[in-house]
């Protein structure tokens, strides 16, 4: 059975590129348009990895991680940030909230796939 990745970003074109990259490597992708949507989808579908943007309307990435870590089914799921942010303060905040990795946009396909493969096993 294929692995499923929850991709959360308020940019439609970014979601499109992430889906294209992950589908090409054989992963299934569930998309969410922001943190709140992502949380709902994480509750309703089994997922193997969460890939999320940081700055989003309704619920940002840090808040999302904190919420996700409260869900038993997502507690140990790897969560990767895919964001334009590069400040050390924000990275530290994400780490404290429970993030697994932090990729700065723009991403290279190969790099994203290497990171996903590493966390997904």
């Amino acid at each position: 059975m294929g692995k499923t990745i929850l991709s959360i970003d308020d940019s439609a074109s970014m979601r499109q590129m992430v889906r294209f990259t992950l589908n090409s490597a054989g992963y299934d992708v569930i998309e969410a348009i922001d943190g709140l949507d992502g949380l709902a989808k994480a509750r309703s579908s089994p997922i193997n990895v969460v890939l999320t943007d940081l700055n989003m309307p309704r619920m940002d990435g840090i808040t999302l991680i904190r919420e996700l870590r409260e869900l038993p089914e997502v507690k140990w799921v790897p969560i990767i940030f895919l964001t334009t942010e590069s400040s050390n303060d924000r990275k530290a905040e994400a780490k404290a909230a429970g993030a697994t990795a932090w990729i700065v946009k723009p991403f290279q396909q190969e790099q994203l796939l290497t990171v996903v493969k590493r966390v997904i096993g």
Partner: protein
Amino acid sequence: MLDSGIAISTIRTLIDDVRQLGLSIEPIFIKIGETLAESAADLSGLQQEFAALSASLESDDMERIGLVLGEAAQKSMVLSLAIEGEGDLLAPVTRAVQEVGKPLNSLKQIGSEVGALSVNAKVLAAQVHVAGIDFSVFTQEIGRLGALGSDAVQKTEASLEIVKVMVNRAQDAFSAFGKDNAAELTQVAQRMDICLSFLARRQDASRNAINRMSAMTKDIEEKISQCVASLQINDLTSQRIDHIAVALDKLCHLLEEGPTKEGEYAWAVDFDSAHLAALALTVCTLQKSQFLYASEAFSKEVDKIISSLTGLSSDVWDIHSITKDVFQGDKGENFIRDVQTHAETSARLLDMYVSAKQQICTIMGDVSEGFKAMSQDVSAINSIDADIRVMGLNATFKCGRLGDSGRALGVVAQELRSCSRRTEESSAAVVTTIAPVAQAITDLVDRTNTENSQAESLTTQTETALAELTNLVQTLETSVLGLQGRCNRLAVLMEKTVSSIDVNKIMAPKISSVLDRLSQINWATPIDDQMLETVQDDVRKFLASHYTMEGERTIHALFDALPAERTEISATSAETQSMDDIFF
């Protein structure tokens, strides 16, 4: 409130325009992303299809076809060369026909003499008046046998005439056969060689093409990867533009509300109008730099996308072209069809060869029958001759006992015996002359049957190969046309997408307008140059927590630097992070 009402309203309009700019490019990039996703999947499919087509050229079926064609070429040449010597097989028959005439003439001559002797015998027998001796039976029998003998010789002559006609027909048939079929069989061999040559060339072309395709695969993957990286510029640019709008919005709030001790901009509470104006001007100028950088980066990445998509379109046309080179003939048709055409012609020629050979066999059968008839006639002559000899001997003895009265008849009887001996010799000569014919015809028929059998076997093999070729033709044609159709569609899709990516054209005037307007904002309050130099710290405080991207911070830092220290920054993608940087 700072007396810069015109400036504030100008900025507010600008903020709306800047935000609209960000929104307008999203749909274009979504469309490009869809094209890219579709293209990537199709490209992979095209390469796999090509590989499958190439595999069909190296399949067991194709190998079998090649072996059959090779064998057919070889055997056809052997048959063609065999034809050269076939006329010689008729030589003994022709010789027999020529030579048998002489002994037959002798037999005819002897028959005449026997006839004359029979008449003599009758006359002389009537002159023998000896009691109790009667030669009437003798004379009657000699007369009868003589007539029978003459009839038999005539029949033999008639048989010979028929045989001559048959042999002429056989000679004509051999001559025509040799002329037509040697050339045709050689043609069969040549056609088969052409087919093999076609196949070998296409197999080579296919192997070379596979190697080219493998090299292209890596290149295509890189172009797609480049496109994916470049398409993200939409999101990055939208964020940058949004940050510019937010910065200008913050500025308007500061100018409209003024700094307060309790507010966010408490550090600016002691600023006079000139200071605020300097701050505002610097922020606007900085946003102009940010905007310029964002638009340059955007433009550059769009150029890369166009270049990648154009390159991918070119790759697709290359695949189309390679497919044509490998699988289509010089006239653009499926090359297997050329092979099929040659194989069909060869099968037809082999059929004609077999028919011609069968005709010859039939004619030779008739020749054989003709000679058999002659043999039977000669047997009849021999039988008649044996009776004449016995009659002659009896008469000789009888005449000897008669003394003088039987002398004349006795001479006739001797003459008859002599005719009989000569008949025996001539008959033997006829038999000896026509004896080799039977063997020659048997040899010829055997050889013809063997060659026919080979030719029929070749025809069957060729037809089997043809049947397999026909299947292959249909499969290949469908697949090649399908592949080329998909190449066409994909290349056109990419080309249309490229021609529709006129984002730079859409964006250029808008960007230019924003930049100009940023430059032209008027401040009612005069601004001191010295003040501008001291306001840098204030700008940092104002926008400290504003930036999220390293690129924005870099622009600010460069802006901060003295003009002499400013360096060009390239609007490229962020450097690749190491795994240590990525993982917590």
